[in-house]
């Protein structure tokens, strides 16, 4: 791994005792014991044995330490390692170090579930298959939602507002297993179209015949008493929860759809308590479609119907350093199955086909035998890589059963003859932050995508301290499911950290695009994200200068993205109607519909707008965009990278109209 940090970051790193302690990518070039050789060079004697080639048996990895797991805990929102997290499992416990890494030894062979906790984050869980050699673990944590006070003897609805709608829990009085009335409730939303890697466990209906479950909407509910002790429902009590359907999935799950719901059970490490929930309108805002369900245990909870169509995907994991195939790497398809590569770096995983894109993550542990990679001889490290795309041309099959070869499969990407290659590179302590804006072309002007990347060492809160522009990154973007190969973005000038597509980029309104960020340019993708290209948004009722009746005023607008966008194209629109006078009255809409019944925000009983002159503006956006008053999750996720990828469109100028 080559040195790439600029002087500012390097100076920061020098304050540490060693480069390895700060976790940078400090050495140069491939070397014995580097990631390129781990898992296949047999530096610990496991050479050539490899994994089980897409099976689920314990693989053999370097270093060969029986009953040991070595892992890293990261923040799904920032991509940074999480130091100080308590990791417990298999009768052992430890705490993550300053880089978020940990090691547990002396574990019994077999399936292992790890519970990870630290204040300020929702509880996380990770799994591993303990065997004869050190096993890699990658756990992602999600920062906990805003704490809210709750008096346990009252009926109350608490909610956390996001761009997808409000996540809510509806308490009955005295339903909690505590005498303490001074409680704190945190609702941690998780939109699976952005952050599904933070979901605990494996979303499968297992048993004899595994069947994939497709995550739709999830949240974690933490209730703490005044002493900070976790509180749950009385065994005989229930609560109602409401979880918004992500805009991208709303066409798949219209109102009245029944969705299977599950609660994560830390005791079994499985998703249990299957019941049906129903898609209905939010009782909090009255407009957002939410999955409403009854819960008996507060934990991670959400909706995940069984998958309809799946594809079996061949994956090859190689070192980003020299392209060496890596055996024994853990491969996770999402939504999909988890497996390990064989000695030749090959694996077969099953991936669900749906409105959300699929991602493929690979990681493994390595041992820096001579210290040439990490600066510390004998140091363990984690290598990671990610690919996010929809594969075209693979034969679809039911989602029930184990992945298997597909007779007659054409030689397309993801087939046996053309596997999806995941390059993995060492996870360092450097964090990359990307902000990408996608602008669709409109016939007269070409589209454009620009990304600003900055880097640095994360501070205690996981955000970069003293960020500096990143040069040398590799950034790819492309249409999800499109036939064109992803295109590279180019840094406009060295040291700027600003990357642009080549002139004339074809970016079509309504289409879904992905970006892949390789911050240090070593070949391994650190993080990915997707967003729809917004079309042109225009008022259809009223238009500028119109006069409308207050009594039956329905505002509406058009979006050129709907012409080519599929059912999943569901931007969020924020519509603001304001009185041109000083009355302060008006109306606000936030949602995915392209019309709404306009009611006064100042008058009671859903009255229409008072007569007068008004202005109206529309903003449509897709992806992750910070917007006042709602919780927005970053949608460029991975390890060591975070960011926002969005597309934005506004009506050309505010309209003025009259209400009578």
């Amino acid at each position: 791994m080559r040195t790439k940090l600029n002087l500012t970051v390097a100076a920061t790193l020098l304050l540490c005792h060693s480069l390895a302690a700060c976790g940078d990518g400090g050495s140069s070039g491939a070397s014995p014991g580097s990631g390129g050789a781990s898992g296949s060079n047999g530096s610990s004697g496991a050479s050539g044995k490899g994994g089980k080639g897409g099976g689920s048996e314990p693989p053999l990895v370097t270093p060969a330490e029986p009953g040991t797991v070595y892992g890293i805990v990261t923040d799904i929102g920032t991509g940074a390692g999480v130091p100080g997290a308590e990791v417990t499992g298999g009768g052992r416990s430890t705490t993550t170090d300053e880089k978020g890494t940990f090691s547990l030894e002396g574990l019994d062979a077999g399936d292992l579930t790890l519970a990870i906790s630290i204040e300020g984050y929702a509880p996380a869980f990770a799994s591993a298959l303990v065997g004869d050699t050190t096993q890699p673990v990658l756990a992602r944590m999600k920062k906990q939602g805003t704490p809210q006070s709750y008096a346990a003897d009252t009926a109350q609805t608490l909610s956390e507002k996001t761009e997808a709608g409000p996540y809510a829990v509806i308490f009955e009085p005295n339903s909690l297993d505590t005498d303490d009335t001074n409680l704190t409730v945190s609702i941690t939303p998780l939109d699976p179209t952005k952050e599904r890697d933070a979901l605990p466990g494996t979303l499968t209906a297992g048993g004899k015949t595994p069947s994939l479950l497709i995550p739709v909407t999830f949240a974690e509910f933490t209730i703490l008493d005044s002493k900070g002790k976790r509180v749950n429902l009385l065994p005989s009590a229930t609560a109602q929860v409401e979880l918004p359907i992500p805009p991208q999935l709303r066409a798949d799950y219209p109102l009245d759809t029944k969705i299977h719901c599950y609660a994560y059970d830390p005791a079994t490490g499985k998703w249990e308590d299957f019941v049906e929930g129903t898609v209905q309108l939010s009782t909090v805002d009255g407009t957002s479609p939410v999955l409403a369900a009854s819960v008996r245990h507060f934990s991670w909870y959400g909706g995940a119907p069984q998958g309809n169509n799946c594809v079996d995907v061949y994956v090859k994991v190689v070192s980003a350093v020299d392209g060496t195939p890596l055996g024994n790497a853990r491969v996770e398809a999402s939504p999909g199955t988890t497996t390990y590569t064989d000695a030749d770096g090959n694996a077969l995983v099953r991936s669900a086909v749906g409105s959300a894109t699929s991602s493929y993550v690979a990681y493994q542990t390595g041992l820096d035998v001579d210290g040439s990679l990490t600066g510390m001889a004998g140091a363990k490290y984690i290598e990671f890589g990610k690919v996010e795309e929809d594969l075209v041309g693979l034969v679809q099959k039911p989602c029930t059963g184990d992945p298997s070869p597909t007779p007659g499969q054409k030689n397309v990407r993801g087939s046996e003859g053309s596997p999806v290659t995941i390059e993995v590179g060492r996870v360092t302590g450097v964090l990359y932050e990307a902000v990408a804006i996608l602008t669709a072309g409109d016939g007269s002007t070409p589209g454009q995508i620009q990304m600003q990347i900055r880097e640095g060492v994360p501070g205690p809160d996981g955000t970069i301290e003293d960020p500096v522009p990143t040069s040398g990154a590799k950034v790819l973007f492309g249409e999800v499911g499109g036939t064109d190969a992803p295109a590279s973005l180019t840094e406009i000038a060295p040291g700027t950290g600003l990357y642009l597509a080549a002139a004339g980029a074809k970016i079509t309104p309504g289409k879904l695009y992905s970006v892949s960020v390789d911050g240090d340019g070593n070949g391994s993708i650190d993080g990915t994200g997707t967003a729809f290209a917004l079309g042109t948004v225009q008022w259809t009722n009223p238009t500028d200068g119109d006069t409308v009746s207050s009594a039956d005023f329905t505002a509406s607008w058009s979006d050129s993205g709907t012409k080519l966008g599929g059912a999943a194209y569901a931007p969020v629109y924020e519509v603001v109607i304001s009185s041109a006078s000083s009355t302060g009255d008006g109306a606000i809409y936030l949602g995915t519909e392209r019309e709404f019944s306009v009611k006064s925000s100042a008058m009671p009983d859903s009255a229409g707008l008072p007569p007068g002159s008004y202005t109206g503006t529309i903003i449509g956006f897709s992806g992750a965009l910070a917007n006042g008053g709602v919780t927005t999750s970053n949608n460029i996720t991975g390890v060591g990278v975070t960011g926002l990828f969005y597309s934005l469109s506004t009506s050309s100028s505010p309209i003025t109209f009259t209400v009578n």
Partner: protein
Amino acid sequence: MFISQAGSSTLLVVDAQSGETAARIEVGMLPHNIVVSPDRRTLYTALVGSQAIAEIDVATLSLRRTLLTAPVPERRPDGSTIQPHFDQGAFTATTCFGCHRSGGAEPKYAGDRPFGLLLSPDGRRLYVSHLRASRLTVLDLDAGQIESTASLEPAGTATEVVAIDRLDEEIWVALRTPQPSTEPGALRRLNADTLEPIAELPIGADPGALLALPDRGRILVSNFESNTVTMHEAGDDGLSAPFHFEAAPGPLGLLSLDANRVLSLDYYSNAVSFLDLDGESAQTLPLEHDGLPYANPTNAALSSDGQSAWIVSSGTDGHLLQLDLRSRRIVRDVSIDGLSFGVAVVPGIVP
């Protein structure tokens, strides 16, 4: 043993002696409740997601036929025409599973959700309750077609006909409010010949199952959301409060063990409760084996020798558990598909 594996559209047939799989029969979407004919030659399971009943030949362990529980509709609830039904000749189908299935036509789960099953004493009629249509369908099993239907008036907000059983000359049905809800359900007594309502009684929220105890002239209802099992007498007109057992939270399936004991499958508690009918008391037992908890029991069936109960643990990892009734310990764990639901024991089959 026959297990309805709702998550994989199959009935699994397991040899009770060896624990080996004897057959795996694809039947249709979301197989749930199971009933066995009086002569034990035929087994029926409700295909909740295919608007049909699957009829299984016990001797050959094969799907003999499917029977629709309601006609294939021409229109959607909003009145629009379902053109594919015309284009593909769907009106002659005997199940929606031919088209609506994983990877097939949307929606994957079609129809009115047949759920509760009751065979007439002579085994010639099958009564089917529907979750989505407030309707009972009577299937003529000789003719293989719908004999009649009876619409049931809602009981307040309770519109879904969940469970059905027979006590003497009456058919009892349990209605629930669409979920999620904590609104009370209702128990309705119907004339077994005419299906005309006789009386209606309030019950707990989200009733799950009915179990008639003809020798006692009683019927039990598991109230899933209210965490109780209520016991009603024949002729109950709802004027007096029924006795209720405080089952462990989330009672679902009910199994008569002997003249005095009933087993309640306590879904949310990962437990079972032994209900003592004479003593009017309950004892709860967590479902554990070798220190491992088993999740979400749904239903159970008595072994042919009456010494044990076979319990469906319906977590995402499926298990069929043998509970020794004398020691009250789990003595065996047979792996089945996750999200399974019902189980029936048919003695004397040699696969």
